[in-house]
């Protein structure tokens, strides 16, 4: 005799879950009662949105499925942004929500909302469990769907009576999931792989364009083998940072709207574009017709719907990036090694490096991120909020490994960073976890300071505080005649706020203090807040205006 709540908790343990992030409420009381003496660790956040972002950060840092739990109605609705965020970035999470009892479903009952309906377009799949006998199987399927193929969020909505209903006969849950309508293609088509190998061998100016799929599939080693065997330069998307070390000689840097000159010029002039686990997002391609205009395109992706969605592809390969790269690499070992574009790339890389010079007599965000990077020497996990802080972190931190970089790419969710950093820190307790924040974004989930204190989660928040919604201000400066409409946010005493929650902090106004302040935060055993009062109107450069070709970059004033 087991209740639904007990089946749920046991199933989570069976799936290997060690921690869930949640917030209790009326319709999840039976589940919380079951958690009371369960081995599962539960982190009580201060807002449901933080629970789903934390589950997301946990998943990205660990490569495992993240789990969050919320009550019906407002609790479930507060998960929506985080579910959409996980969907856009293909992050495996299972979101569990309570629901009003089945007898009240559809009655506009207290705290009822149709959460499976609301999240239909932003989940990989969802379940409304009507029968307790199905629950065990549903949980097993949900984890399988979330964590295989193109990963993504799965929602399980459980009415309160289903949580208290009892199964008298144990229901067998088969270990191997078999879903007729869900059979992701893992192995690439051999003939396509053969063709890819010969196209790559014949190309004069090939470029690899690597996205988040490389990180998700854990295929960075195969990627490096491909690049190094034939000396093919690599550019990564925002989601792909860490797939190749920042300092690797073949790394051109990030491409797209705030990409490097070397990456964007190389894309424009390449004759073969090898897109790997990437989806030709508008922030990457700029004007589509001018994106890799002279190139043949090979596109490797696990999701067939991404092939040809935005850009016409000459050679599609549907499959797991790791499997496909391995097969391609097998065929390449005999081929001749090509020269890396006869010195043109190194010239562009030199230009890119030149534009990275910044004035160290001012408190610039670039200097702060670079200093952090130098201190950490390639270690740590960098989580970001969204906006200028995110782009400076992407541009100026030197990454050494995959899953070291956690950012809201597709949805661009302000307020993501801090709770995601909590999740990352729980997943990787031995890593230093930094949330590079803006003063706007941090205030969207600032209440989580209470959570990091309660559980002593040693996340370091570095606020690049310009008292503006900086990225919007930058667009207003460049494209709206400096009409700063509602983007100014007067100074907040972040150190005082942190202190009130019980978190120590330092406010930094002088560039000479940057290094010491960062050192102090890192040596402190626990959470810490650094409030850097940066140059207020510093811009993220280079920049490709929306809709322009990616080689038409604004390079900005060189400091």
């Amino acid at each position, binding site marked *: 005799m087991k209740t639904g709540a007990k089946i749920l908790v046991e199933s989570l343990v069976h799936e290997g879950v060690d921690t869930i992030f949640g917030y209790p409420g009326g319709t999840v009381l039976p589940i919380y009662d079951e958690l009371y003496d369960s081995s599962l660790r539960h982190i009580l956040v201060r807002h449901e949105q933080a629970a789903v972002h934390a589950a997301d950060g946990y998943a990205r840092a660990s490569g495992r499925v993240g789990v969050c739990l919320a009550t019906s109605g407002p609790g479930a609705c507060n998960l929506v942004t985080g579910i959409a965020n996980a969907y856009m970035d293909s992050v495996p999470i299972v979101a569990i929500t309570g629901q009003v009892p089945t007898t009240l479903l559809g009655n506009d009952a207290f705290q009822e909302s149709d959460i499976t309906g609301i999240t*239909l377009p932003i989940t990989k799949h969802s379940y409304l469990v009507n029968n307790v006998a199905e629950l065990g199987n549903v949980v097993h399927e949900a984890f399988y769907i979330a964590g295989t193929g193109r990963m993504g969020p799965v929602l399980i909505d459980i009415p309160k009576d289903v949580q208290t209903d009892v199964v008298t006969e144990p229901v067998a849950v088969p270990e191997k999931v078999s879903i007729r309508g869900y059979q992701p293609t893992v192995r690439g088509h051999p003939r396509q792989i053969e063709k890819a190998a010969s196209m790559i061998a014949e190309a004069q100016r090939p470029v690899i364009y690597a996205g988040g799929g490389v990180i998700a599939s854990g295929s960075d080693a195969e990627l490096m083998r491909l690049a190094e065997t034939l000396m093919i330069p690599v550019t990564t998307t925002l989601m792909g940072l860490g797939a190749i070390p920042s300092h690797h000689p073949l790394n051109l840097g990030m491409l797209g709207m705030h990409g490097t000159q070397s990456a964007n010029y190389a894309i424009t002039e390449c004759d073969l574009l090898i897109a790997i686990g990437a989806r030709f997002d508008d922030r990457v391609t700029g004007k589509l017709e001018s994106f890799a205009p002279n190139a043949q395109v090979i596109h490797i992706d696990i999701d067939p719907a991404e092939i040809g969605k935005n850009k016409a592809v000459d050679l599609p390969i549907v499959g797991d990036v790791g499997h496909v790269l391995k097969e391609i690499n097998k065929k390449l070992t005999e081929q001749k090694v090509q020269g890396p574009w006869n010195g043109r790339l190194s010239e562009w890389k030199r230009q890119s490096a030149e534009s990275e010079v910044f004035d160290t007599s001012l408190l610039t965000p670039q200097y702060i991120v670079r200093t952090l990077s130098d201190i950490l020497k390639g270690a740590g996990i960098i989580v970001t909020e969204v906006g200028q802080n995110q782009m400076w972190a992407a541009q100026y931190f030197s990454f050494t490994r995959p899953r070291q970089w956690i950012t809201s790419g597709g949805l661009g969710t302000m307020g993501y960073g801090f709770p995601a950093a909590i999740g990352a820190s729980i997943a990787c307790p031995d890593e230093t976890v930094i949330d590079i924040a803006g003063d706007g974004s941090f205030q969207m989930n600032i209440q989580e300071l209470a959570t990091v204190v309660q559980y002593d989660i040693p996340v370091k928040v570095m606020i690049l505080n310009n008292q503006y919604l900086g990225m919007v201000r930058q667009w207003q400066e460049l494209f709206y005649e400096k009409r700063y409409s509602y983007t100014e946010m007067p100074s907040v005493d972040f150190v005082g706020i942190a202190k009130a929650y019980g978190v120590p902090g330092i406010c930094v106004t002088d560039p000479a203090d940057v290094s010491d302040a960062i050192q102090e935060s890192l040596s402190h055993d626990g959470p810490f807040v650094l409030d850097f009062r940066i140059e207020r109107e510093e811009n993220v450069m280079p920049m490709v205006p929306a809709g322009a070709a990616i080689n038409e970059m604004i390079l900005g004033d060189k400091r």
Partner: protein
Amino acid sequence: MRPHTISVLVENRPGVLSRVAGLFTRRGFNIESLAVGTCEEPGMSRITAVVIADDDIIEQVKKQLNKLINVIKVSDITYTDHVAREIALVKVAAEAGQTRAEVMQLADNFRARIIDVGTRSVVLEVTGDTGKIDALVSLLQQYGIKELVRTGKIAMTRGSKTVSSKK
């Protein structure tokens, strides 16, 4: 752009229709008609959707539909030899007398059946392809159509081939 007839085999689960219909709306695909019902396999339904779009958009429609977990099989049968039918019920203003006689004559020409007769109207049932129904409807307009209901197109490939094989 041309109408494409897409046959979708789905698991008969709660919400499957909203998933399919929602996907069309969300991705900006234009549905001309949608017909749903159970089919030869227990627990399954077949949806016939008519979508007006270019071939490359249809390719994207098919791929996106295939991503839905409850979708078993998607076939664009537009270019396959197939039969297609639609049913319409038309309530036409037709007082007894000359008008009614004309309406009944038209019905006869289109092999439509009169399934209800009132004092001031008749209800016609017509089965056929979309073009035939459009033609009858346009001819009936001169008498005054009080109400019109169409099922949307259902379709099936000719010969022994089926669209229910595994995805």
